């Protein structure tokens, strides 16, 4: 279980392996790091992998909306994968799901 998120660049995609818990305590530093990749490494799309994430509150919604605003200027997209039921629930309540590409497993 990772306490800290990890970043990987594949082509013009940034893949972020999100941490076990996402709240106001770590949200700001995650956003800052992603923004650095977007600016310095010419990343167009961001994929958030929640396979290790057990908990996320509205601070996580803030990360997603903020990154969407950044990449959407350049036709970039936000992809979300491996969300648990709790994350899906807050995503659907927040009304932002329509702006994101949600990848389902088979």
């Amino acid at each position, binding site marked *: 279980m990772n306490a800290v998120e990890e970043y990987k660049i594949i082509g013009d995609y940034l893949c972020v392996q999100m941490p076990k*818990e996402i*709240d*106001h*305590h770590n*949200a*700001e530093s995650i*956003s800052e790091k992603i923004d650095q990749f977007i600016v310095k490494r010419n990343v167009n799309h961001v994929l958030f992998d929640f396979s290790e994430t057990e*908990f996320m*509150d*509205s*601070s996580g*919604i*803030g*990360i997603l*909306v*903020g990154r969407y605003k950044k990449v959407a200027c350049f036709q970039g997209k936000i992809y979300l994968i491996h969300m648990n*039921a*709790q994350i899906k629930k*807050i995503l659907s*309540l*927040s009304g932002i799901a329509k702006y994101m590409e949600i990848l389902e497993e088979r």
Partner: protein
Amino acid sequence: MKNQMHLEFSADSANESFARVTVAAFMMNLNPTVEELSDVKTAVSEAVTNAIIHGYEGKEGRISIRCKLEERTIDLEIEDKGKGISDIPKAMEPMFTTKPDLERSGMGFAFMEAFMDELEVTSTVNEGTTVHMKKRIGVLTPQDDFL
């Protein structure tokens, strides 16, 4: 059954996780489902985060959580002695935030309302805010009757 606890901690973002995990551990007596547990954890996380960011605006302070378990209900009071809220209905509007620069989504109260059965906010400017929430645990949903 009536079981109570009182938790007091510094308004430090590192304690957001401590607060929701402690409340979740305390409510285990009610035999909550995984979904009920994460609902309560989300609501606690939102209320505590509000106290830290808005109540104390990142400055030092203390947050107290009083929690009661009654029959099949969890009753939570999350209190700060911060700056208070001048317009509560406005603060509770979904997507409203006084701190968009911090990328706050403005969904805090909306999530508390959605995940708990009752939500009441009382606040006095310059004195502080109390968020009172209740949730019935282990209540069958209408669909369960057909199983």
